[in-house]
């Protein structure tokens, strides 16, 4: 069945939350972690609750609320969220106190808010939504599992509206640990130069991207024409064959695709997986050099593709290679995590 993206909302390190300043340039600074541009949460959450909520929950609730508003939906028929890290900040607060205080004199607040499903649970609680509610936590495949589950749910109930999102927060601790294991850089880099000088490690970031998915095309941003996942390809040839086969099933070749949205992030080990496969002559769009890398960043890649298919104009710094001037009618979002989990999502203009 056809599935459409009916509403969207993204919080990232760029202006992605409001339409009026969408993707307007943010002054460029060399950093190791991109700061998120957080919205005014008071528009979505009561002040008392804002103070109690961690950043990841606030971002999640605001993006979910805004996406529903955008789709003119009061309550979704299912909520499915991907978050690799969950509520890191509250987890660390409780863990740290527990160890410092030798397991004595602890209070429950941080523990209560530490479970990975706190984000989806709070969204349901604030809206009074009793519907299906799931949280997936599979590293850089978390959002993709949520998206896949949304398609499965819509195939069962085509008249439903599904709230699907990818949400993660970065903390100084996680950044430091991931710098030690080489996933993030210790030397600041400028977004405009990050992809030109691939080294070991990406620039950190975080954010929340939500979308409303439904079987109803009216007013939609784009159609999700297909989604294919595969793991651990043995070689670049195998990956390319997977892409060809997937596109063939939708009557397309790589040359027919108006653009490929990929997750290059400045880490040469990550980026080469894309570069080893993609031929010359295709239009390539990137986003992680401007949003920073986090496991569910690809949710924004999907939202970005949806915006472009509805006619939004892409500023030059997001376009990594321009092969033509066509107004996009279809875009392939290709995301991989450590060359382990790959996801291909084909979006078409409505």
């Amino acid at each position, binding site marked *: 069945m056809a599935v459409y993206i009916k509403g969207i909302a993204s919080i990232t390190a760029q202006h992605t939350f409001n339409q009026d300043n969408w993707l307007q340039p943010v002054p460029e600074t060399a950093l190791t972690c991109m700061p998120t541009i957080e919205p005014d949460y008071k528009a979505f959450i009561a002040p008392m609750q804002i103070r109690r909520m961690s950043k990841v929950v606030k971002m999640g609730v605001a993006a979910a609320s805004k996406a529903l508003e955008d789709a003119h939906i009061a309550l979704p028929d299912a909520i499915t969220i991907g978050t690799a890290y969950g509520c890191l900040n509250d987890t660390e607060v409780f863990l*740290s106190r527990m160890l410092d205080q030798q397991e004595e004199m602890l209070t429950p607040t941080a523990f209560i808010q530490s479970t990975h499903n706190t984000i989806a649970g709070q969204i349901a609680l604030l809206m009074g939504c009793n519907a299906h509610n799931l949280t997936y936590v599979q590293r850089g495949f978390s959002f993709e599992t949520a998206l896949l*589950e949304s398609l499965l749910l819509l195939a069962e109930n085509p008249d439903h509206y599904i709230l699907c999102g990818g949400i993660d927060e970065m903390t100084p601790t996680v950044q430091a640990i991931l710098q030690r294991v080489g996933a993030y850089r210790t030397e600041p880099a400028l977004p405009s130069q990050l992809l030109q000088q691939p080294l070991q490690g990406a620039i950190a970031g975080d954010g929340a991207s939500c979308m409303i998915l439904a079987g109803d095309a009216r007013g939609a941003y784009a159609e999700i024409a297909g989604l294919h996942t595969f793991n651990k390809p043995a070689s670049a040839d195998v990956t390319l064959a997977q892409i060809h086969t997937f596109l063939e099933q939708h009557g397309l070749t790589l040359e027919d695709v108006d653009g490929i949205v990929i997750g290059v992030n400045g880490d040469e080990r990550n980026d080469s997986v894309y570069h080893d496969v993609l031929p010359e002559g295709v239009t390539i769009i990137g986003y992680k050099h401007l949003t920073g890398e986090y496991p569910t960043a690809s949710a924004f890649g999907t939202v970005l593709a949806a915006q472009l298919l509805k006619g939004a104009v892409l500023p030059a710094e997001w376009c990594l290679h321009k092969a033509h001037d066509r107004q996009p009618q279809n875009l392939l979002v290709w995301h991989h995590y450590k060359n382990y989990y790959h996801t291909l999502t084909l979006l078409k203009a409505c």
Partner: protein
Amino acid sequence: MNSRICICGLGAVTAIGRNVSENLASLRSGKAGVGTARILETVHRNDWPVAEVSYSNEELAAMSGGQAHWPRTALLSMLAAREALDHAALPAGEKMRTGFISANSVGGMERTEYFYPAFKADQTQGATKDIVNHECGAVTEIVADALQIHDFITTVSTACSSSANSLMLGARMIKQGRLDVVVAGGADALSRFTLNGFSTLQILDKNHCTPFDANRKGLNLGEGAGYVVLVREELAVQWGLKVYGYLSGYANANDAYHQTASSPEGKGNLLAMTTALQMSGLQPGDIQYINAHGTGTANNDLSEGTAVMQLFGDQVPMLSSTKAFTGHTLGACGGVEAVYAMLAIEHGVVYPNLNFTERIPELSFDPVTELKEGQDIRHVLSNSFGFGGNCSALVFSKS
């Protein structure tokens, strides 16, 4: 419904057994696994009894084929998932798309607890091997790699209902033709983090827990893993697999009442049970046994019992909680109890709800308190509820 979801393999490890047959023997003999922690290094060893798997990480590694430096959750997961796969005896050499859909609540937290103090004092310190598998998804990934399952891997984390939801996603993936075989369930090891967390919530019992009793004081935490092997029906038939039963209904709902407490009327519980029954095409009267979530907390047992009464009226089927045997295994309990539900069907057995003496005044029914053998169990309802309002119900059927 279209293609049915066959259950062709079971695997479980808990405080009452290292495999399925030991678990069943303990359930039959009334042998609970709750006692003083020997492996978990906590200052509260004598404050809070737990249901601990009695093997060290080194022993679990040797038993499962895993590695001793893995998080304990991964070792428990490996042991039970491997048992389930062995039990299913899938045909070698047949082409099949296989998934591993697991669940856990705190990933490699028990290793993180060793890493963090040194790291906090000096960010260049702490062994990274103790932190690299902190993520819930990392635990699933290392087990999937060891089991050589590559087609699809994911992890659910919805607190105490996590692994029931793994079965749900697995069934949907098979029904819609994306996978043929799914090893579905979950695992969780005891950690100081969860023990102290539940302690702050004041919902731990200082003694052996008493689910559904009027004077219940709280839960005992446990650890373990439970998995089932789900197979597309046509393939199970074609391959001549032994089919132990079917996952005939499932549903997930949210209570939307409180982050950690259930609504008094059990709104989410009722919605999950009702929707799961609808999917299975059954009436409440068709259920012979309910394996309740039944944690032993004042809040859960009353909400769940109230929801059961609303759905079943004065015809509440045999019901018991097995949490007094295994403790509350959090992200594992839906998988462990799925295995118990299948064993109830296969062996015609209903497990006793241990430590029950007095009915909850608001409820109209008592749980089963004595072992029942020779029962004709055709349909079992299994409940799992969790923080964040997450409520899940599964229906298992003999045919």
